[in-house]
């Protein structure tokens, strides 16, 4: 074993820079792999811990104060319920917020919970202790981690032209309202007195509500409970679901907390695996090059009695040392970057990230990086150590050159430097094909980065469409909106008004049952953010549209009859279409208001979506409506959605930056390795060419051109193929969250940026690496002979 270690150590000494570069690549792969694996496996623990510390509600409903009078009775009858609790809260329909004098870009919805009220379910969990005074507020932890608000800061609400000032006492963690992707509300704690004062001032914007919370017995099947409690509430307290409300169950919300972070980390995991693949290809190159350059030494070792297996073993040992070092350094780097990662994760999920080093994930990283590198080393070295001893001693591989003479100078038309560059490219076809594939993959990855950035961070309309969030240009929340909507629709600046109500329904099909939240719209065909993947939107009162997740669960197809159980009756509906949504974990139903009346004997309306006529901006419409109807608060849809989508946009921006950075790193690495090997191997040729009269500039250009065509072709192919590959790849990732039909669109400009970015990086590294040609002196080379 020591003899293998001895050879491996000497081999590594001979190619220090190659070993260093490969170690760097494995370090990066190990780092990304560890981050993604540990984050994905620990994210649940973080949420669970906050769940335990706050005794988070397993079922939550926010509804009108008056609708909850007999809620205790309803819950007493439920066998699955361990405890039930009601607490008051004030729903702030829309408010701007000011931190230390700086106003937020977007308006947002707040829920003011009362700090003085005693609570056992969804308790306050905050590191800031002590009594809360009237001028103090406890903000959600997300505002600290993502929006960088600090304890002691001045925080003000800006509602209806008034400001309400507070001092930030601290931050609380609540897994149900952890981040805006989960529930589009910032839940804060203030004193009862202060909340009442504000509500009295802003009657149209701050509405008194009641939070109903239940803890369920262990082992309760949440879907079944949801159906049962929906039935019970519909039967005994129909007002609770007919007025504006939202309700959710913890088993669904826990995924909502971590959804955007999970998507991001999932993509990072794929990328880490891709990097390992690239490291393996480079390992193969390295060993191939080393064998070629040291074939005589290999022959000598064989002649002196080393067995093939021993020589192969030395290469395996060498790669073991490299991958072990890379993995350990990568894991150490992950410890060093742990603080940053923690802050990043906190800012995405909105809960404090209290996870330390994860030995299990580290073991997985080691178990992946080291054996695969060793396996590739074994496979790559077999060919050269098997060469007959005599051939090896006669410089084996180079002795038998039966390559085709590509681009003969006599017949070619290109400039000399390009001609010689192309010759180099085609002379090492297999190697260059490998590089082409690597760069092509990186090109695709870069385009995916830009694609998700464009689709989710820049084009928020597109993101809203995927989320299925319909807010209109301007929207109203509240009660008794129907008549008001008819009034608003008469305004000459208004194009149309859509009414939305929602309620829980039970679906029965083919012996299966499930409960979903159903949205009722007066004219579903006009919804802007509805992605129908099959069929059409409901038009008649006996039609229903279901999300693809529900359809798959029930095994139902367009045209089938589904039985729907509402508050009063059980009716049959035709499935007229299938749509896709992210919100509610993709579990939604949609029917017309007429369909709701058919089922429940009446219709609800909790939200009005107002659409402006062409030429009227959202801002103008909101101002106009607020001036005309001051008793109600018109909220700009985009301003509100902008705040909700912040975590997704942050993740997508980060991913795009990571993809670009790693692409630059790998392209630089590949070009550096390629040219360094070329220069070392062809040092004599360079010396002779200099002696014959080639200038350094000519040789540099020729060298750069020997790598650039492959890189440019790879980047070009990657950019062109991204439409074919990127969409389906991203689609696979998004399917898990309810997006079945996803057409990634990458603008031409991003493809050009990808091409220029990769080519520019490669050119720069090629020129810098090629600069060592300047140092080659023909006299020295000739004197060495």
């Amino acid at each position, binding site marked *: 074993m020591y003899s293998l270690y001895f050879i491996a150590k000497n081999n590594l000494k001979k190619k220090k820079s190659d070993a260093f570069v490969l170690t760097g690549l494995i370090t990066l792969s190990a780092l990304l792999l560890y981050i993604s694996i540990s984050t994905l496996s620990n994210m649940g623990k973080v949420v669970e811990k906050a769940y335990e510390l706050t005794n988070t509600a397993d079922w939550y409903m926010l509804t009108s104060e008056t609708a909850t009078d007999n809620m205790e009775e309803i819950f007493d009858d439920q066998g699955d319920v361990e405890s039930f609790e009601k607490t008051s809260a004030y729903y702030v329909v829309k408010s701007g917020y000011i931190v230390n004098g700086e106003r937020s870009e977007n308006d947002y919805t707040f829920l003011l919970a009362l700090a003085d009220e005693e609570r056992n379910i969804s308790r306050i969990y905050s590191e800031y202790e002590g009594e809360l005074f009237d001028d103090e507020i406890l903000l959600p932890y997300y505002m600290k981690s993502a929006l960088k608000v600090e304890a002691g800061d001045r925080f003000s609400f800006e509602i209806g032209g008034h400001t309400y000032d507070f001092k930030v006492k601290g931050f609380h963690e609540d897994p149900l309202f952890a981040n805006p992707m989960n529930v589009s509300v910032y839940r804060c704690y203030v004193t009862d007195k202060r909340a009442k004062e504000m509500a009295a001032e802003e009657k149209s914007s701050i509405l008194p509500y009641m939070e109903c919370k239940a803890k369920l017995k262990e082992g309760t099947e949440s879907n079944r409970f949801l159906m049962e409690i929906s039935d019970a509430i519909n039967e005994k307290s129909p007002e609770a679901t007919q007025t504006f409300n939202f309700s959710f169950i913890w088993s669904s919300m826990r995924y909502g907390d971590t959804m955007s972070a999970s998507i991001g980390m999932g993509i990072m995991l794929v990328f880490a695996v891709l990097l390992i693949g690239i490291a393996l290809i480079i390992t193969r190159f390295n060993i191939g090059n080393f064998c070629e350059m040291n074939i005589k030494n290999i022959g000598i070792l064989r002649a002196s009695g080393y067995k093939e297996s021993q020589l192969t073993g030395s290469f395996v040992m060498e790669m073991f040392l490299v991958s072990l070092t890379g993995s350990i350094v990568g894991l150490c780097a992950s410890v060093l970057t742990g603080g940053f990662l923690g802050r990043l994760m906190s800012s995405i999920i909105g809960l404090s990230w209290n996870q330390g080093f994860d030995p299990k994930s580290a073991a997985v990283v080691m178990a992946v990086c080291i054996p695969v590198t060793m396996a590739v080393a074994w496979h790559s070295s077999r060919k050269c150590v098997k060469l007959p001893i005599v051939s090896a001693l006669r410089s084996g591989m*180079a*002795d*038998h*050159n039966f*390559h085709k*003479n590509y681009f*003969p*100078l*006599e017949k*070619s038309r290109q400039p*000399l430097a390009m001609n*010689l560059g192309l*010759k*180099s490219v085609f*002379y090492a076809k297999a190697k260059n094909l490998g590089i082409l594939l690597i760069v092509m993959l990186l090109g695709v990855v870069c385009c995916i980065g830009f694609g998700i950035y464009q689709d989710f961070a820049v084009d928020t309309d597109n993101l809203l469409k995927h989320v299925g969030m319909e807010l209109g240009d301007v929207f109203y929340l509240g009660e008794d909106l129907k008549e008001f909507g008819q009034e608003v629709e008469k305004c000459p600046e208004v194009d149309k008004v859509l009414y939305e109500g929602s309620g829980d329904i039970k679906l029965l099909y083919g012996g299966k049952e499930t409960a979903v939240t159903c949205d009722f719209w007066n004219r579903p065909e006009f919804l802007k953010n509805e992605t129908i993947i099959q069929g059409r939107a409901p038009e008649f009162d006996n039609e229903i549209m279901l999300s693809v997740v529900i359809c798959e669960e029930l095994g139902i197809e367009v045209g089938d009859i589904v039985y729907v159980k509402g508050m009063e009756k059980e009716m049959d509906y035709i499935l007229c279409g299938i749509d896709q949504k992210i919100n509610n974990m993709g579990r939604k139903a949609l029917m017309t208001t007429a369909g709701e009346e058919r089922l429940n004997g009446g219709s609800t309306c909790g939200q009005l979506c107002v659409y402006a006529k062409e030429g009227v901006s959202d801002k103008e419409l909101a101002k106009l409506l607020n001036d005309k109807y001051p008793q109600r608060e018109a909220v700009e849809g985009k301003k509100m959605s902008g705040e909700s989508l912040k975590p997704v946009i942050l993740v997508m921006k980060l991913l795009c930056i990571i993809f670009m950075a790693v692409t630059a790193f790998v392209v630089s690495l590949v070009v550096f390795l390629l040219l360094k090997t070329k220069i070392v191997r*062809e040092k*004599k*040729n360079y*010396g*002779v*060419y*200099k*002696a*014959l*009269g*080639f*200038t*350094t*500039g000519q040789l540099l250009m020729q060298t750069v051109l020997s790598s650039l065509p492959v890189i440019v072709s790879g980047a070009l192919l990657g950019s062109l193929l991204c439409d074919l590959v990127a969409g389906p790849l991203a689609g696979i990732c998004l399917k898990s969250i309810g997006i079945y039909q996803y057409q990634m669109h990458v603008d031409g400009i991003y493809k050009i940026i990808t091409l220029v970015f990769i080519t520019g990086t490669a050119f720069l590294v090629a020129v810098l690496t090629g600069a060592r040609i300047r140092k080659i*002196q*023909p*006299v020295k080379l*000739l*004197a060495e*002979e």
Partner: protein
Amino acid sequence: METILTAKDLCKTFSQGKLQQHVLKNLNLEIEKGDFVVIMGSSGSGKSTLLYALSGMDKPTLGSVKCMGEEITGYGNDKLAVFRRNHCGFVFQQNYLNDTMSVLDNIMVSGLLADKNRKRIAERAKELLSKVDIGKEAWNKFPTQLSGGEQQRVAVVRGIINSPALLFADEPTGALNSRNTGHILDVLTELNKEGQTIVMVTHDMRCARRGNKVKYLSDGVITGELFLGDYESGDKKRHEELRLFLQEMGW
């Protein structure tokens, strides 16, 4: 006769830390057009260093080199490269052909530096290859598919493809067997007869016999010079003169 290369007070010193080695010491030399100058000397006498200094491949520490009317001593690396491509040809001990290029391309890559006309260069390369007995069938082969002697003849053709004023040969037969050595020397002699000026470094008497002037280098200075006149095969007197000269020089 026209002088095409003049070296004046040429000095070359190699330094390694505080240690200095003076390889060429105030050396003076003139080469006339059409000469076949052979530089001889014992190992370490500075033969190759002199050749590289004369050809602009290395810069002397002191002194000047004037070639074809150009004072090249002060030239930068790129200007020297252009000078070499226009006026000098080289044949080394090893052939230094590029293994990844065909025979024809190895020659053309050098030729295209001075003349961009590919057709003309290709034709000249083929003509020269035929002249040194490298048949058509070998033109598109790779160097490793040729014998050592053939490879060196290709290297000679590469050296003269640009019709250089001076052909510098640094022990061009050092790596060849007796038969191939004779072949290469015949090629060089033939070229010289056609007017090609050649400066050759060697320590082989058989090679030295081919020159019309032999200069003996010892300890960085030229200590003796012998005029042999034009080479004729079987000239025993010439061989004897050379033997006595070298004996006198202490070789």
